Each structure stands twice: as C-alpha cells, then as structure tokens.
C-alpha cells in the first residue's frame, strides 16, 4: 500500500469499524475541516443576528415587525424546514446502511422540502415588498432582509449542492468519496436548520410578541 501525503497513522479502512464516510484519511480531514468551517459560519450568523437585534426597533416610521409578520406563514416555513432536517437525517441513516436507494429517496424528499421553504420565503418577501416594506425603507428592514436573506441564500446553495451530489451518487454509487460528500452536505443542512431556529425565535417570535 502506498503512503499517503496525508499521513496515515491509524488503521486502514477495512480494519477499522469507522463508517464509510470516515474511512479514508482524506475524508476524515475534510469532515473535520467542514466542522471548523461551520464554526466560522456561526460567527458570521452571530454578527448578522447582533446587527439585526440592534436595528430591530429602528423602523424609521415604516412598518414594524408586528405589522408585517404572519404567524401562519412563518410557522409553515419552520415546520417545513424542521421536517427537511429530519428527512435529511433519515438520509444519513440510509448512508450508514449503504443503501443508495434510501439515500436518494430521503435526500430528494429533503430537497423538495427545501424548495418549498425557499418558495414560501420568496412569496413572503414579495408580499412585504408589495406593501412597501423594502430593505431601503428602514434599518429594521435592512437588517431583516439581510439576515433572513443570507439564510435563504445558504439554503438555495445547499439545494444546488445537494443536487450535484445526488447526480454523483447515481453515477458512482455509494463509495468512500460519495459517502463523504453526502455526509457533509447533510451536516450543512442541519446547520442551516439550527440557524433557522434562531431566526424563528429572535426574529419572528420576538417580532410578533413585542
């Protein structure tokens, strides 16, 4: 066996009981690096949240959170996204069973839910803009659209990425390399879900409460 540029000090894949996505040194490094990247993403969103919270009351005479947000709408978005995180988890479970069909099925469901979420979000934004609540209207709205929009852009990118990886899964089957990619995109998806929970609480719930 060849010696890897990424030095292998531990046992090789076959010997160890690691899941497939962790089976090569390269994969372990990439998954670890992705966790670190998510750490940086947390700082990014934290900064956006802080900005939003500073600006939340500054409506400059424009519409307030309470006037804009519809409980029914954002509850719907939340339920859809939370469900998608669950189906994504089932996809990872299928990955552990090395079931290509299972992964495909659950990730496609996740994708569809993600698309539904994005569609609802776009409708929500269009609705606000129709009422004159644009990001140019007030600091509060600038903060709102940027924070929620950044999350939405992340979700959209996640959808695109997931599609690419599913194509590769179909082409190549469940290998160490595709397993890693499926796993990482799953991590990303769960992360976006966690961010949404904060948006749900700090933006929407607090918005309608005060």
């Amino acid at each position, binding site marked *: 066996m*060849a010696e890897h540029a990424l030095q292998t000090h531990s046992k090789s894949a076959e010997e160890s009981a690691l899941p497939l996505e962790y089976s090569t040194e390269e994969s372990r*490094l990439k998954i670890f690096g992705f966790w670190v990247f998510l750490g940086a993403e947390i700082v990014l969103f934290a*900064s956006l949240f802080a900005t939003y919270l500073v600006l939340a009351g500054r409506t400059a005479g424009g519409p307030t959170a309470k006037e804009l947000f519809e409980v029914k709408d954002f509850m719907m978005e939340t339920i859809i996204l939370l469900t998608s995180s669950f189906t994504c988890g089932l996809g990872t479970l299928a990955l552990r069973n090395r079931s290509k069909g299972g992964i495909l099925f659950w990730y496609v469901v996740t994708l569809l839910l993600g698309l539904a979420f994005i569609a609802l979000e776009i409708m929500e934004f269009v609705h606000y803009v129709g009422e004159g609540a644009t990001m140019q209207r007030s*600091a509060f709205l600038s903060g709102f659209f940027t924070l929620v929009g950044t999350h939405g852009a992340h979700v959209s990118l996640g959808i695109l*990425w997931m599609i690419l990886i599913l194509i590769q899964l179909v082409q190549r089957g469940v290998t160490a390399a595709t397993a890693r*990619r499926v796993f990482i995109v799953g991590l990303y998806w769960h992360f976006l879900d966690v961010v949404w929970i904060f948006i749900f609480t700090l933006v929407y719930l607090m918005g309608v409460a005060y």
Partner: protein
Amino acid sequence: MGFHLPKNFLVTGEPMIVVAEVLSVLTLAGIVFALTYYKKWKWLWDEWLTTVDHKKIGIMYIISSLLMLFRGGIDGLLMRTQLALPNLHVLDAEHYNQIFTAHGTIMIFFMAMPFIFGLMNVAVPLQIGARDVAYPYLNALSFWLFFFGCMLFNISFMIGGAPDAGWTNYTPLAGSDLAPGPGINYYLLSLQISGIGSLMTGINFLVTILKMRAPGMTLMRMPMFTWSVLITSIIIIFAFPVLTVALALLTIDRLFGSHFFTVSGGGEPMMWANLFWIWGHPEVYIVVLPAFGIFSEVISTFARKRLFGYSAMVYSMVVISAVSFLTWVHHFFTMGAGPAVNSFFSVSTMAIAIPTGVKVFNWLFTLYKGRIEFTTPMLWAVGFIPTFLIGGLTGVMLAVAPADYQYHNSYFLISHFHYALVGGAVFGCLAGLYYWWPKMFGFKLDERQGKWAFWLFNIGFNLCFFPQYFVGLMGMTRRMYTYPEGLGWTPYNLISTVGAYMMGVGFIIMVYNILYSIRHGERDLTGDIWNGRTLEWSISSPAPHYNFARIPEVDDLDAWWHMKKRKRKQPWELRPLKPIHMPNNSGRPFIMSAWFFVAGFGLVFEWHWMGIIGLLGVLYCMLKRSFEYDDHHYIQVDEIERTESAAGRA
C-alpha cells in the same frame, strides 16, 4: 443595472497618476514581452499559476508582499515628503487622503498578512514533518483570492478613483452620501475577496497543525512558530467572518440603498466601528503573533539554546488571543461609549501587556548565557526587542481611556502603531525571510549586505517614528496633509522624513541582496545551513516537493537538534521508501479567483450584470470541483530515490 462609464473612468486629472499609469502599462508590456521572448508562458502556468505545492505558494505570497511593501512604502515616502516641511504642496488634500488610505490598507491586508501567510506556507508543514497542508487545492485558492483581491485594490487609483476614507473606512464618511463613486466600493470588494481567502487559510492551517503532525510530535513538542500559527488560525476563524459581515453590510448600503449605517433610515453608524474593530484588533495579533513565533525560532537557533519558558510562551499566546477579542472599544474611547464601558476596555487592553511582558522576558532569558551568533535574522530578532518595548509601553499609555482623549488621532498614535506593526510584524517577516530563505531557494542571502540593510532600516525606522511621539504630544494630528510654520514641529518632521528615506534605502539594499545572492550567495549543501533545531532543517534545501522521503518520528522539542546529537539511526530512518501520494496541480483556483475579480470589478462600478457574470463563473468552477475525483497521483520509489541521492542523501 446598465453600463455607464463614470466620468474620468481612467483617472487622468493628476500628473503623478498619469505617470504611474504609463509606468504600469510599460511594466506589464515588458513582462509579457519577456515571457514570450524567453518562451516562459508554459513554465509560468505549469510551475507556478497551477501549483498546489505549499512551498511555491509560500514563495508567491512573499513575492507579492514584497511588491506591496514597495508600493505601500512609496506611499509612505510620498506622505513623508509632503510633511517634511511646513506648507508644502507636493500632494493636495484629496490625493493625500487617498494615499494614506491606500498605504494603511495595503500594508495591513496586502503586505503584512500575506507575508505571514507566505512564511506559514513555507515553514509550517516542514516544521511538523508533514508532506503537505491539509487542503492543498484550497491553499492555492486562498492565495489567488488574495492576489486578485490585491490587484482589484491596486487598480483603483488608475481606474475610477481610489478610496479615501482611511483604512478604517468609518461610516458615514464612507457611506454613499459623502463618498459616492467607485473608491470605497474598491475597498469593500477587494477586501471581501481577499478576506475569503484569509479565512480559508485559517481553516487550512488549523486542520494541518492539529491533524498532520509527525508521529510523536505532541502539541507541547511543536516548534514555537507552528504554535503561533495555530493560535493565529484560531483568531482568523473567529475574526474574519465579522469582517465579512461588516464589508457586506456596507456594500449593501452603498449598492442597494439599505440603512445599516445611515442615520436617516434609522441605521447606526457606530455599528461599523464596532464590527470593524471586533475584527481589527485581533487582526493586529494575526500579524504579530506569528512574528513572535519567528523571533522565538531565530533567537533559540542563534543563541544555540532551547527556548526559555516554552510553556509560558504558549500560554501567554493563548491568553493574548482570547483577550484580544475583548479590547476593540479602545479604538473609539472618545466616541462616547461612557465611563463604565471605557473602563472595562481600558483594563482589558492593559491586561495584554502582562502576557506580552512574559514573552519578552523569555526571549531575554533565552539570550542570557547563550552562544549568540549575530546573523542577519538574529539582528532583526534582537533589534525587535527594544522597538517592541517602546511600542508596547506607549500602547499602555494609549490604553488609559482618559489620556486617550489627549493622544487620540495624534501622531503619538501613528508612532505607537508603527512601532508595533513595523517593529513587530515587519521585523518578524524580514527575520523570517532571511532565516528561511536558504530553505526556500537553496542559497543564503549575503550576510554583509543583510547587515547593512538591517542597520539602515532599523536606524531609519527609529529616526522616522520616534520624533512622532513628540509632535504628537505637541498637537499634530494624524491625517493632516500640511501644517503651518512656527509650531515647533518642523525639525521633528524633517528628521522623521530623513528616517523614512533611510528605510527606503535599506529596502533597496535588501532587494539588491536578493539579486546579488542569486549568483553569488553561499549555496546550502547540507540543508541545515544555520545549524537549526527544528525539522525543516533535516531535509535538503530547497525542500523536495514531497518534503520528507520518510516521515520522521519525534520524541522531544527541537526534534532535529536531538536527532543530530544521536549517534545511531532511528528505526524510522531505516525504513524502506514507499510511493507518495500527492495532489495534482490545478488551474481552477487561478481561474476561479479571476472570476471573483470580474465580479468585484463589475460591482465596483455597479454594473450588476457584470457582477452576476462573475459570480456565475465562480459557481461554475465550484461545480467543476464538485465533480472532480481523480485529483491525486503517486510519486514512485525510484523517483524519490533519484531525488534524494541528487540532494546527497541516501
């Protein structure tokens, strides 16, 4: 949307700029001609633009930052020329604003940081006994993002007009009301692009150091430079996303009319100051901690002693990095945060002096009773200690919030941070450059010329910045483009300018030294020309592209020093060679960053269509990468054997 050229798209109003434009075009034409004439395009592409070798990437970082040191230095000299005597009009006020903005921005983002990144790339994998960084492809991408971001910034003064709100770019000065036009957009987008690269470098080196150390190298056996890079990487990962957000918010304000920082829409101008400095203060440590690491290496190598107080050094760095996130408000004590807030940040700032003091004492104790050898790198390291003491002490003076009302924005401050940034970070970079030069290129820089450059630069530096403490106390404020006679400032300013030119001469000697030593420099035949202590000196110079033919096993701090002391070979040194798995070169990091440049350029002029095209290009490159599977190859044993024996190693 739409395509409309701003008035004066190509800046022609200022004779100096026109000259610079002509020179730039001539240089570019010269480079293109030379590459074509000597048929070097393919070589350039194959060996450099597509490389994923951390050592070559390091070299490219260093070359770029030396160029930027030149560019930023010329800006500095222009400013010093303008200020040499009262009532001069070498520059007008507007031009002066642009120049100090360019100078500050370039020095911090495009000189100091990439210089550090360059040395990190050259030394860290070698110091930890690794064949590469964790993500070689990403490493190349980081470099090219820095490079194209830097280019975007550098064309601003010729195309469209340069930013002029200072390197801190405070709102509302930098908002679209007071600063319409492309200048500030250049600042925002070029820093955004290179900032993404910096974040990825942080992630890359964190993972590299945590996961790719040679067997036996525990955290507390890591060379001090590697430790400093580890801490720096953590700071980068926590600090850079904040900068990303700050830049993005101001970009959205300027391009799309939102109200994050505009009072009229309910926005908060102070938010920029907060976000900027939450990133900005740790940034100081991003450039200065690795310099500390370099000094530690150099001092222990040339004192021929183990570093004194190794673990105290490590812990003090950890403390500095944590506290550095709690001091940002000291940059705007005078902007009305209230006494309680000011007191907290005043105390936290002063607290940093304690771990820093610990480090200084450790260096002194390492020197004590050492067999000191004053090589050029050692001169820079020892020369650093007094300059940094002066910088540090005046820093504590500035940290006293009430006193800051007096010093704030005066030349006292200018002097303080140049003592910290030049006397700390730049001295460190230059020490590292002389120290690792033989490892990078296989020959040593001339020592005699190196010493001339050091003394000229060091004396020039002190002449330049020490008098500024006094003019600062006499009331000269920063960013002043001229001053009247009769205030008693003239002699100080004149001396200061003379010092600046001395530094310039020192820099020229340094460049000459490089050219001279390419032909005449002492060749490094052993790979260990300094009699070093850490693993990078255990392999030939320049290092082969796979670094280590056999991965070493480490059993102590200063691993190579101990290996040299041992008579018998260790078991791992006798193991048979095996094929080595290496990443393939790729042109995509270069191309992808070029698309970022296109997007950035479009957005600078608010040509949104061009921004979109650029971003689609980026997205396409990411898609291609996603579908890439065979991006590795093997180096076979016979090739390793040939390389090793050519370097005189069996």
